């Protein structure tokens, strides 16, 4: 096996670490008939144990820090982390807020950033497609 095993089958777990819900709605938009990510085998799952991709929105508030680490550790390898939105990448509009532990890459390794506040669904789908390439490259190296 190896290369191409993750092609056309990528299960995504979405974790909100304190976002304003803008990005979350754009993620849901990617599931609607207009974009329909299921045709690429991308599926939103309800448990991090099933996930290949962690889709993280939000700047990581103090309360969410432990949860984020826990969800990250619960996800089986191989996995990639995708941060959606400016606030997860840099803090965005919440920059220098008193209760931030983030941005996300201070706590866990991030593979792909999707800038935008919020980004368009096309950009999110593109990021997940890049996650494919990255997972495959990781598998090939083994």
């Amino acid at each position, binding site marked *: *096996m190896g290369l191409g*095993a*993750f*092609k*056309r*089958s990528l299960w995504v777990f979405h974790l909100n670490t304190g976002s304003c819900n803008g990005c979350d709605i754009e993620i849901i938009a990617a599931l609607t*008939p207009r974009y*329909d990510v*299921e*045709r*690429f*085998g991308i599926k939103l*799952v*309800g*448990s991090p*144990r*099933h996930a*290949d991709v962690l889709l993280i929105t939000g700047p990581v508030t103090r309360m969410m820090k432990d949860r984020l680490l826990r969800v990250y550790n*619960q996800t*089986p*390898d*191989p996995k990639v982390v995708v941060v959606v939105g400016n606030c997860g990448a840099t803090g965005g509009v919440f920059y220098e807020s008193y209760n931030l532990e983030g941005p996300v890459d201070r706590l866990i390794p991030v593979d792909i950033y999707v800038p935008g506040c919020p980004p368009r669904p096309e950009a999110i789908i593109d990021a997940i497609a890049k996650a494919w390439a990255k997972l495959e490259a990781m*598998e090939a190296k083994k």
Partner: protein
Amino acid sequence: MIELLYLAASSFLLICVALFIALVFNGIERKLIARMQARIGPPIIQPFIDIKKLFMKENIVPDSAIPWLFNSMPAVALASSLIVLLYIPFAGMPALLQNYGDLILVLYVLLLPSLALAIGAFASGSSFAGIGAQREVVLMMSYEFVLSVVAISLAWLFSLCCPQANAFAFSTITSKPAWLLVGGAGFLGLILLFISSLAVMPAKAGKLPADIGEAKTEIAEGVLVEYSGRNLALLYMAQAVRVLAFASLIVALFLPWNLSSLIAIPEQLSMLADFLFFLVKVFMVMFASSIFVSAVTARLKVDQAARFYIIVVFLLSLLGLLLIGIDILM
């Protein structure tokens, strides 16, 4: 000895074919549901891709789990849902092990996958899985009544028409369609029984509107929450096979016709024709009871579902039994 080997070989072949068919049907189902929601949908081979990927993933056993129970239950679920196919007439042929088990055994073995799922979930030690398992068991208790009423009514019919044979055996039940044994009232009763067994399908298959045990958005996939990698792949396959097994059971009980006995087909082709006809029948049953229903409904709450099965569907099947009784006794 040779006979035993022959039996083992043909069982193995049947299991492989059934697994393949179950996964293809699963793919078709996902495609059709997507189409009904005006989406394009995944390719039909998507289940195979998903399973291949799941086998490559890490298999996590949570610290709070009982490892041997947690790890063995997915295999039990898959094995029991495959084994039940050996007792049900499959692909237009009589069941391979038809001399070793009958309808009662099939109903019990068909329970095993759900039970295994619930036990595995309890063994995982997660509270989400615990809730899911409880819901699964409540649901199971509410639809099993219906299936036993269906079994009893059919056995009653057949015990009168063929008094010397075992009325619960599939060789008796498939020998004649039940529809030909009854008059007007009994015919109506059979229709009610057919409808109520179709209504059990979503719960048996874990599909909307009765996928309460693995509700993704409220209890994080419920019974499946802690499963990953290989175990999840086994459970995925068990799920698909369970749908196929229950659909073939309904076909055997209510639609036992073979194409070769309906129209003239050359001898060599009759087996192939029966096989394809069987697939069409199973697909129609799946479409009517699970695919179409789950595309247009939302999830019920567990008390609503239990009430639906215990009151509405159970009474429907009792009415069917009553009508058949009237037909027999008059």
